[in-house]
């Protein structure tokens, strides 16, 4: 057992490095940086370029990556994330995911031919023998450096004026400003330190896991559990969390019998631990929820007038029908993908747009629906029964996931749903009997008496019909009493409680509804594909859905369509690797722009129209009172006044029903 502990300290130091980077950035900037791994890997690429490809000394590589590129990236990051400090958490998450995608593809473009191996900055080989374990110098170095950094950064954050200023800015920007602290400068410095830490982690960890953005990002995700043990505040506890996690994994690896549940359990340990910690710490987590809950209302406001939305949807609807008769079979097939994904995204409109809950596990529900259909209907086309079964199975699972929303919100709810998605990936979707593994399972096209839905055009109309039905459901729900209750749940839960509304039941209900919608959409998805496998429903897909949803505008039906387009573009464009990479770069940039337009591209369009009106028909200042102003005070929200709004005050325009 001593050996397992020794190994745990060694391996856990790697998790700790990744986890501490997250904590540092979070404490210093208030943003949970999903792009931490990508930033670290980008820095590792720079280090590789200088030391390996150019053959310069190691010191030059460290200087170039940590003292030149990292500060620049930190400054850019601060600029990107500044408007998001008080934005809805889904926007924060999505923008950091956008940065991840951008850096990932920038790295691929610039360093695509770099080998996966990167030498350690420490000498290789055996060093010392502890218990029954030989420990190498690189491992000793990683442990010592991780401990040193934990100590140093704890001291900086909690004992120095700089650290206190950083925390003050995160806690209350206004109070900090009143105390003479420049929030911009402090925040910029915080980001620089955070990115430098990410870079140090990347250079230390890349030799262990490989010079690959996906792998390091995955390592960072595993390290979320370690960071959570430290409640996203304590670096020593984060270090301890990394070590405990590694000891747990090592124990399973060392003692567990082969095969069966143990394989999945070892891979899922970090995510199980994350869920447990979220539940245990639910009352002690950083107090970001209040701010985020209030700003979630930013989703509600529709930037376009009713007439414009009605006209827009009429045009889109007409175009959708006309397209069916003029488009090629192939285009129609690809267009169907857009419609199917948009249908899936409507489930997020209900969950995130309407009730303010976050889900990073929506693809798992889509998978539940698709695999249910493959078992219930198979290839015989009776997917109607499958739809019922899919909804019936997904609803209780949705309630189960929704239980986390009773105690968690914002970022922590997002992390809980992400853990759910990873557990589904690792434990459920790995069961060959359920999913068919990499071969997947077949699903037939639906059958209607007298109507053949097997052709591309017929299925396109079928998918459109389901989308229209879902859209009608969403709009009706929003206009209904239940819909208003959901909006109140998002904006003013305490007020809702005083009215005698059962908040828990409402939350669980909306999770069940959203899960069922996603699951039924999954049946359509499976029927469209005719064969599905677990890769179609991984965490990456859930992330893709959330990103696309927020890009389009998570509060509206039209936003779901735009989101569907974002997901379907690579398929529509039949991408080569080059175009695929460029597209991903573009998505990353769009998401970064989104930081200025948190209501999605629709709001971007509205702002453009506003400016156009302004140019064409200049009006007095008085006339402008009450008109929307994009991003007053850098809050990432919209205001109804021309003056900068207080950063903690969210002013929401008159609500209009979704179109």
């Amino acid at each position, binding site marked *: 057992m001593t050996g397992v502990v020794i190994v745990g300290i060694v391996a856990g130091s790697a998790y700790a490095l990744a986890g501490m980077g997250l904590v540092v950035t979070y404490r210093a900037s208030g943003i949970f940086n999903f792009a931490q791994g990508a930033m670290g890997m980008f820095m590792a690429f720079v280090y590789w370029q200088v030391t390996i490809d150019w053959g310069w000394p190691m010191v030059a590589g460290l200087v170039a990556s940590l003292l030149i590129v990292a500060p620049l990236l930190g400054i850019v990051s601060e600029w990107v994330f500044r408007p998001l400090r008080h934005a809805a958490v889904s926007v924060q998450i999505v923008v950091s995911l956008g940065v991840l995608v951008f850096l990932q593809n920038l790295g691929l*473009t610039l360093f695509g031919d770099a080998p996966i191996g990167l030498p350690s900055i420490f000498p290789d080989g055996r060093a010392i023998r502890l218990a029954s374990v030989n420990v190498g110098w690189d491992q000793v170095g990683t442990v010592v450096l991780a401990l040193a950094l934990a100590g140093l950064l704890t001291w900086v954050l909690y004992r120095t004026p700089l650290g206190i200023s950083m925390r003050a800015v995160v806690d209350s920007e206004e109070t900090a400003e009143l105390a003479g602290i420049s929030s911009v400068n402090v925040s910029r410095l915080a980001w620089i330190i955070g990115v430098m830490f990410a870079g140090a982690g990347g250079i230390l960890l890349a030799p262990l896991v490989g010079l690959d953005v*996906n792998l390091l990002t995955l390592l960072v995700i595993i390290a979320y559990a370690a960071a959570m043990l430290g409640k996203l505040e304590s670096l020593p506890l984060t270090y301890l969390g990394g070590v405990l996690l590694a000891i747990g994994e090592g124990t399973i690896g060392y003692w567990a019998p082969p095969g069966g549940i143990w394989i999945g359990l070892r891979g899922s340990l970090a995510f199980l631990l994350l869920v447990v910690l979220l539940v245990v710490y639910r009352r002690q987590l950083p107090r970001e929820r209040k701010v985020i809950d209030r700003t979630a209302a930013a989703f509600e406001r529709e930037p376009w007038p009713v007439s414009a939305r009605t006209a827009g949807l009429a045009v889109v609807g007409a175009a959708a029908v006309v397209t069916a008769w003029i488009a090629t079979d192939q285009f129609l097939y690809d267009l169907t993908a857009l419609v199917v994904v948009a249908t899936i995204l409507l489930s997020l409109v209900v969950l995130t747009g309407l009730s303010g809950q976050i889900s990073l596990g929506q693809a798992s529900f889509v998978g539940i629906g698709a695999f249910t259909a493959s078992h219930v209907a198979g290839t015989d086309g009776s997917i109607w029964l499958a739809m019922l079964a899919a909804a019936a199975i997904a609803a209780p699972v949705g309630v189960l996931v929704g239980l986390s929303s009773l105690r968690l919100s914002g970022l922590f709810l997002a992390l809980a749903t992400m853990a759910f998605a990873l557990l589904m990936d690792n434990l459920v979707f790995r069961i060959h009997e359920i999913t068919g593994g*990499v071969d997947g399972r077949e699903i037939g096209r639906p059958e209607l008496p007298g109507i053949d839905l097997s052709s591309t055009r017929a299925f396109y109309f079928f998918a459109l019909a389901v989308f229209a039905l879902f859209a009608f459901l969403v709009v009706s729900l929003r206009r209904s009493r239940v819909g208003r209750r959901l909006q109140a749940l998002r904006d003013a839960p305490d007020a809702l409680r005083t009215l005698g509304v059962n908040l828990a039941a409402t939350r669980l209900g909306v999770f069940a509804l959203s899960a069922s919608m996603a699951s039924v959409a999954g049946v359509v998805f499976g029927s469209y594909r005719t064969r599905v496998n677990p890769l179609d429903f991984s965490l990456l897909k859930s992330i893709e859905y959330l990103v696309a949803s927020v890009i389009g505008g998570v509060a509206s039906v039209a936003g779901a369509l735009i989101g569907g387009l974002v997901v379907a573009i*690579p398929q529509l464009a039949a991408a*080569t690797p080059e175009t*695929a990479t460029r597209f991903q770069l573009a998505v990353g940039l769009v998401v970064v722009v989104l930081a200025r337009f948190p209501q999605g591209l629709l709001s971007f369009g509205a702002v453009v129209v506003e400016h156009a009106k302004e140019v064409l028909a*200049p009006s007095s200042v008085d006339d402008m009172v009450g008109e929307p102003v*994009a991003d007053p005070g850098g809050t990432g929200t919209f205001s109804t006044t021309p003056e900068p709004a207080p950063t903690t005050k969210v002013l929401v325009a008159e609500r209009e029903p979704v179109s």
Partner: protein
Amino acid sequence: MGRKRSTGWHGGRALILLALVVIAASCGSSLSREEILSVGGGSAGGAGLGADGTGAVGSDVGGDFAAGASGGAGGEGAITDVGGVGGDVPAGDAAGGAGPGAPGAPSAPGAGGAATGPAPAARPNVPLKASDKGITKDTITLGVVSGLTGAAGTQFVESAHTIDAFFKDLNQRGGLQGRRVVVKIIDDGIDAGRNASAHRSLEPQVFAFVGSLSIADSGSASVLRDTGVPDIGFALSTPRAQLPNHAFVTFQAGMKGQTTMTAEEAKRAGVTRMGFVYLNVDAAITEANAVKKAFESVGIPICYEAAIQLVEPDYTSYVQALQRNNCDGFYLVAQTNAGGKFQNTVYRQGYKPKMALHNIVTYERAFIEASGGPEALENAYLWFGQAPITQENLQKIPELNRFVTTLKRYYPNADPRKYAAAINWGNAKFFVEAFNKAGPNPTRQSFLAAARTIKNYDPGGLVAPTPDPFAKEVPPGTCGNMLKFQGSDWVQVRPAGGGYDCSSRVVK
């Protein structure tokens, strides 16, 4: 206008962003994206087959190709290479020799059958015409749908580069039966939906798919099945592998069973208890399970088994478990870097197995580097299935030389050791051979009919011969070879001296 925006694109910030991008760009390697899978077959063909003559490919072994008088080995209807890297033209049944493809008999080293007798380097006398989808009197269009970005990173890029390079080279030498070959490559991003869509969009345009490689290739099955388009490549899913219009060279997923070659070699090395450690993904688990049966069939029990995750910061606990269970050998199925790190841990912990067995994925140089160097690779074996790239083999096996030099010519940064690159060269070569057998104006059906007559296919010794490229039941690797790390690189130990061993039995 009284409208204040507290955020926006200020000049200073723009300069900072620009500076970052410029610095980053200047840091970038000189990766030329022109190498990223250009569509089309490169320059138009020359004046005739073999027009560029002997030695057109630098150090290529022009003499080996040019000679060829002996006929050499090779399967039925072997491709004839004329003059240097001359064009591939049909030799019909002219190729002599039983070839190494006959299962059950170890092949002679280097008897790849590349050097075959001369054949007329001329365009067929029959008028060329558009005989089916994807074929005109001037061009043959082929499709490749591979996972070149996404979850698998750039792991499969070389395999697509290989197809592109093969046909660019062929075009430069006059094309295929006087037609220029156009290669259309689409990246599916490891997404089954995009894979299916890409196949649907390409199917009306192409004569065949050649060399597609993707973890998400189950998406293609229905399109391939419904259209019957020929599909020559390395299937990773059973639905694609089982299609009647699908053929493969050497390796193939979705088949039951493995040969006992590795187990026999382990026994020879003195292994008495074998451990299995594999990546926790479907393909690796399937492979490990099949190999386990092979070991048990020769009387070597399984002492330990574990699935590793995609990301593991340390492998010590697994190595300790192997030691605790007294395993004196282990088989590892993992990616290049993970495999190397595991091997490094084995060395670091002082664990000295009699056989540390790895699979073909770890042939890349990165594996050796990740392991920490030659001293960490004692008793490391590689279960292979293609000719190792050594100076000796480059001289001895013309097809290997041609593969390496052609790939490097069109893609200087490409690594010919990468997964499936050589196999895809074999797939492309198989397509050419079948096309030539089908006559100057083939249809898809006549092409498939001709291709099905090719048995014991041997792409010039580059990869292990394939008894039946259309087989659905025969396990992969009936023929193969094994390497052992010696000195600074892998050296073939079975069959000693080169060639492939087809004598092992199959365990299902």
